[in-house]
């Protein structure tokens, strides 16, 4: 992404021209702009780096400054994710499903805002923005319903030849790194994040670098959905800076690589070997399609545990 600090930098904004005489008769009051912070461990924080990147609309208009996450932010996110993950995994599937459904509810209630952000940041038409928000809501509902079916569909009872009861069940992998697609930012993020966390993983996400606004707003949805702090951590910033640290982090068990950047993917795949990380690379042609959801997305981030126990009296 190129830095665009000139022109509209600092004072520009969607309504800048109209806001000059805020509060005077005939003029709308001055808009309160949002400070976009990263979301780590359930808290909205400025990057430890103290740096920000300006985000512009497709046409180059300044929209906002977003925190540029650093490797220390990443480290903190993994720490928080690690601490939170066992508790999240231990919650009943029923409760996890309700929390994901709550995310859909919260997104629905703020649909208009997301549509506007998508329109501003990616230049989507109102209809297209609406479709993406609708699809994101539907995706959350889809995964909400998965929580209590995963084990039944991915688990097996294995007919071994000796006197043992033998069964295999899926378990979460632990902390999963997600390199979110650049576009579409909202449905792309939701489509990968939901299947990662629904099985009990915690996620550390490198957001779309070009279009992080809707994703950072999604943090506000997640924050009000009873999702335990630390289960999703959303970090904006420069992917090429952060991805190697994510891939080399010894406390990250797996990476969903949907970033779509060949060089970055190569580096992630190589670095992942440091602790035998599982890496799943995605190239999803159409995130709104039904093929962009389902059990396969969940299965990539579960481990299968097989347990043996003797049968006797």
């Amino acid at each position, binding site marked *: 992404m190129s830095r665009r600090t000139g022109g509209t930098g600092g004072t520009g904004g969607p309504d800048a021209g109209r806001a000059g005489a805020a509060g005077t008769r005939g003029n709308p009051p001055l808009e309160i702009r949002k400070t976009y912070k990263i979301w780590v461990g359930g808290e909205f924080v400025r990057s430890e780096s103290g740096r920000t990147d300006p985000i512009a609309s497709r046409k180059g208009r300044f929209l906002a400054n977003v925190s540029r996450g650093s490797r220390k932010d990443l480290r903190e996110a993994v720490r928080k994710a690690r601490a939170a993950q066992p508790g999240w995994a231990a919650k009943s599937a029923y409760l996890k499903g309700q929390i994901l459904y709550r995310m859909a509810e919260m997104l629905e209630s703020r649909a208009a805002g997301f549509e506007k952000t998508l329109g501003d940041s990616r230049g989507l038409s109102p209809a297209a923005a609406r479709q993406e928000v609708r699809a994101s809501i539907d995706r959350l509902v889809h995964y909400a319903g998965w929580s209590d079916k995963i084990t039944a569909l991915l688990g097996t009872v294995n007919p071994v030849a000796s006197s043992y009861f033998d069964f295999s069940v899926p378990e979460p992998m632990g902390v999963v790194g997600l390199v979110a697609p650049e576009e579409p930012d909202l449905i792309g993020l939701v489509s990968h994040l939901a299947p990662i966390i629904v099985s009990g993983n915690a996620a550390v996400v490198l957001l779309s670098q070009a279009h992080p606004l809707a994703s950072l707003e999604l943090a506000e949805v997640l924050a009000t959905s009873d999702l335990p702090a630390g289960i999703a951590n959303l970090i904006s910033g420069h992917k090429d800076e952060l991805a190697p640290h994510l891939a080399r982090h010894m406390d990250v068990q797996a990476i969903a690589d949907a970033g779509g950047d060949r060089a970055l993917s190569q580096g992630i795949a190589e670095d992942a070997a440091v602790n035998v990380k599982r890496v799943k690379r995605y190239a999803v042609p159409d995130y709104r399609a039904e093929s962009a959801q389902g059990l396969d997305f969940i299965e990539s981030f579960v481990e299968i545990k097989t347990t043996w126990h003797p*049968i*006797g009296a």
Partner: protein
Amino acid sequence: MRTAALPFDVSRVPPIDQAGIEERAASLARRSIKKGAKRTGIRLALSMLDLTTLEGKDSEGKVRQLCRKAIRPLPEDPALPHAAAVCVYPNLVSIAKDALSGSGVKVASVATGFPAGLVPLPVKLEDARRAVEMGADEIDMVIDRGAFLSGELAKVADEIFQVKAACGPARLKVILETGELETYDNVRRASDLAMAAGADFIKTSTGKVAPAATPPVVLVMLEAIRDHYLATGRRVGMKPAGGIKTSKQALHLLVLVKETLGDGWLTPELFRIGASTLANDLLMQLAHESSGNYQNEDYFTKD
């Protein structure tokens, strides 16, 4: 009836895992006993035999023949060891005593309302006492399985204790009838109980109930004996009985003893095999080992 406190702490009886004990017994069954080990093992098994006849139709003549077999299993081979004992019903004790006189073969008598044990305690005591009076060196008593399975452990222990007293100098073998106890946990619990109550031997079965002396059951009892010995210093003997017909089975039992209790129990003083037809199979195997020819049972006297 005297109500005694339990002579052992039931809560300390270890659990037994069925699959685990069965696998261990099966793995020991795969020991390969060949050549010298086979010959020595068969002779050892012969010396540990409690040659048994416990049928309603038993007669004086049958018991005398059995005694001759016990003293000299193979007439043409005087170097073979004699059996450890002859085991009979109480009414035939005096016959056996007479026939075995001076041979070193012991007389064992079943008692205490064998095989069910469902007679009043005074009758059990009298049964044992009379058998000893008539010359029994060893008494094979049965426990009250009904009482055991109902949880009346103190009653079972008290009966053993009193029978032991009634036996005087005779050694007491306590038959658990493991086939009726059903679980290995019960076998272990009954073993610990019997030893705590004074048993000199613990014995699997009457021979009237199947399953009887299965290898895992024997292994459970051997482990109980080992733990009792390590805790108290007292060596209790073991007697599997029931369904042991072949040399292979007998050698397998010796393997269980060797690898659980070690050298100390590889003696007729502490290990017996209760059987009626096993002797001939041991002899046939021995003949095969020395001649290389497979044998026909008609060359060996039935009793």
